[in-house]
């Protein structure tokens, strides 16, 4: 079992660009959550997907959108990137309360 995988590992973008991050959940998990972790802070909840629908959303602007595919994998899209979007983006999959995290994608916006 590969666990939760994320791609790419690192990404550098410039302001105004768009980015897509990808996540494959742990085998058997049907729920995927996305978090943003800024330097020195804990993970901040962006949104959660279940059965291909956004089930819950944190306090993030509409520039942040996502998708879940029939195989439960998920994408996080961020439009009109800002410098403040630079962070580690974590994906977590779950069946119940316990979430399993991927290694994250480090996004740098210049």
């Amino acid at each position: 079992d590969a666990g939760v995988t994320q791609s790419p590992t690192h990404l550098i973008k410039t302001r105004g660009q768009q980015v897509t991050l990808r996540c494959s959940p742990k085998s058997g998990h049907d729920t995927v959550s996305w978090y943003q972790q800024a330097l020195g802070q804990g993970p901040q909840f962006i949104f959660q997907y279940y059965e291909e629908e956004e089930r819950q959303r944190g306090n993030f602007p509409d520039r942040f959108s996502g998708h879940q595919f029939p195989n439960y994998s998920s994408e996080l899209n961020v439009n009109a990137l800002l410098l403040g979007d630079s962070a580690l983006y974590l994906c977590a999959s779950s069946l119940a309360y316990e979430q399993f995290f991927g290694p994250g994608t480090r996004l740098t916006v210049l």
Partner: protein
Amino acid sequence: DQQVKQNSPSLSVQEGRISILNCDYTNSMFDYFLWYKKYPAEGPTFLISISSIKDKNEDGRFTVFLNKSAKHLSLHIVPSQPGDSAVYFCAASFRDDMRFGAGTRLTVKP
């Protein structure tokens, strides 16, 4: 909106001694609490959890205590080992809403 707080950004203990990491929360609706450990370049890894109907949960060297009236939980590691050196995140959840603290960096010195 910091509903989960870890007021100590860092903690240093001697190998073999007890490590106590603290966490406070403000939302009385939270009914499940978790601790995650994070090494550099990896995603957070689930460590131990506790339901709000309990006040203690033990797993080997790790014990989590919950004081609902004080809205406080703590993680005890006994005995501490150098391999425990990592950032520890406290998380609290209600249904699908999970909030994380900012983390405490634990250093266990040989």
